[in-house]
């Protein structure tokens, strides 16, 4: 590689948004009625950000997150993740893209009840070319990182909510994705477990540099993030500017 263009592209990459959204719109059809959910959304999410999407119920938070995560399609607008126009990808290309680039954390954990913690975390690795022993090593390492190395053979119904969500976090990060998306990750947890999960996400962000987008309607949870984007009726109320401009207050 030549030095100059290489350095130049590196520079751009460092300043370029990981998620770039321009004029994004989405509506749902209910019967013969078209219900607009998101209108003209524009925002940038930089690599290494931990962003909270806040807003009242029904404001379109989940819809926006789903679009970014590539599990839903916008009606119009631009949506690029790591430079890739994911709106242009076909169904199976998009599935491959998600497998390689997105880690999902859900409100209700969405673990496979018939699989053990170990097997649940191994699940996304089944789509990679890793050998059995490589998978085993990575799963053990990851479950160790979320503090569950003594629960490998437990089934989800043998784990507490907080533990299940930690398994889900392990599943989300085991493939080392570009982007972590979390939809109300603490919505089903008690305060202690919620704090636990949020602390873990903060660590993933701070120590491993994971880019995280988290939907929440809970101000306490949002405070764990570095930036907050407020959505109301499908529009962004306050767009975060430079880092620190809308830094949330430290959690109480």
């Amino acid at each position, binding site marked *: 590689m030549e030095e100059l263009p290489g350095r130049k592209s590196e520079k751009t990459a460092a300043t370029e948004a990981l998620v770039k959204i321009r004029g994004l719109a989405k509506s749902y059809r209910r019967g013969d009625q078209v219900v607009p959910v998101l209108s003209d959304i524009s925002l940038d999410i930089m690599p290494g950000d931990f962003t909270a999407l806040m807003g009242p119920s029904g404001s379109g938070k989940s*819809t926006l997150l789903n679009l970014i995560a590539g*599990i839903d399609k916008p009606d119009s607008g631009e949506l690029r993740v790591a430079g890739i126009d994911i709106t242009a990808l076909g169904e199976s290309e998009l599935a*491959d893209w998600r497998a390689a680039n997105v880690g999902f954390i*859900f409100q209700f954990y969405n673990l496979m009840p018939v699989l053990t913690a170990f097997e649940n975390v191994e*699940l996304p690795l089944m789509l990679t070319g890793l050998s059995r022993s490589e998978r085993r090593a990575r799963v053990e390492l990851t479950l160790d990182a979320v503090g569950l190395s003594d629960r490998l053979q437990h089934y989800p119904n043998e784990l507490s909510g907080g533990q299940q969500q930690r398994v889900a976090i392990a599943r989300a990060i085991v493939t080392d994705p570009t982007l972590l998306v979390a939809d109300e990750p603490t919505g089903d947890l008690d305060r202690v477990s919620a704090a636990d999960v949020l602390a873990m996400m903060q660590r993933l962000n701070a120590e491993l540099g994971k880019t995280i987008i988290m939907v929440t309607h809970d101000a306490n949870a949002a405070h764990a993030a570095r930036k907050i984007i407020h959505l109301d009726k499908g529009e962004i109320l306050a767009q975060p500017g430079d880092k620190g401009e809308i830094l949330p207050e430290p959690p109480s």
Partner: protein
Amino acid sequence: MFPLNLILRNAFRHRLRTLLTITGLMIAVLAYGLLQTVVDAWYAGAAASSSTRLVTRSSISLAFFLPVSYSQRIRGVEGVKTVGHSNWFGGIYQEPKNFFPQFAVSDNYLDLYPEFVLPAEERSAWQRDRKGILVGRQLAEQYGFKVGDPLPLKGTIYSGTWEFTVRGIFDGSDASKVTRLAMFHWDYLNESVRKTSPRRADVAGVFIIGIDNIDSAAAIARNVDAQFANSLAETLTESEQAFQLSFVAMSDQIIAAIRAVSYVVIAIIMAVMANTMAMSARERISEYATLKALGFGPWFLALLIAGESLLISLIGGGIGMAITAPAAAAFKQAAGIFPIFAVSEDTMAAQAACALAVALVAAVVPAVRAARVRIVDGLRAIG
């Protein structure tokens, strides 16, 4: 293998539901196999019959007799080697439920049936005794008849009680031969009838014609019937096989009903299985959506569901097939109406095909639904 592991565990998630479905499949496949075997047994007699024999009967109906004098004229037809005759006796042994066929036969009858093997001394003993009767091995074993035993038959077509003595027990030349029958002297029957109702004497129910050349069977049959064309008692001559099938044809509707029931059984289990699979898939729609979000394709989901359906069918159908042969043996013992009652390879193949069809049909709708579910809709299904 990973998908197999997941399929296996999914299949036994609702243990009771799965066990009930497996039981249902097992019973359905078993019932199907037994019903098909009944149909086979029905046709077995015809299939086992000889093609070197022709049967001549009244062209009107089997219930009509032919003059026994026809025997001479049939013998004169070119290609005919032997002619025998017999009458259906239809007697009752002790109780009406003890049904078995009895024939009054001409003396040369056994020469026409080499599949019935009788020791020479028993044959001559029978020929010496006017009231002697021969019983087949299967019949002898069923009622414990031994040579020398009395065998009284209460006549239905021919009134009175007929006292016979067992003079011989014949075997089948191989295991497939039906020997659940008895035969006695036509001459004895005829003499008795001549005394009581002379107008019903000197008649035969059917003539059995032995021929040398199978290829000329059709021509011989035509020539025999031509002998009696435009007479008071016209004849119908056909191969023994065709004759047996015409017997079976009388029960065509029964057989059609049995067949229909066997398919209905499969259709019912198909509906039950489809319901089970649809129910399972509906409950798991958010899991399928999650798998899709993680990057698993629609084919993977279809595989999971079809695999689960196949696994359940395989177990239920497999057990059902495995117990069909023992069940058939028990049925043969208990019912005793079908000397040949064996589950054929065709029936087993059909059972396997039914189980497979049930699995695939049951999987189609849920598999397509899971493969097509939009991820966001599937995820919202949780709450």
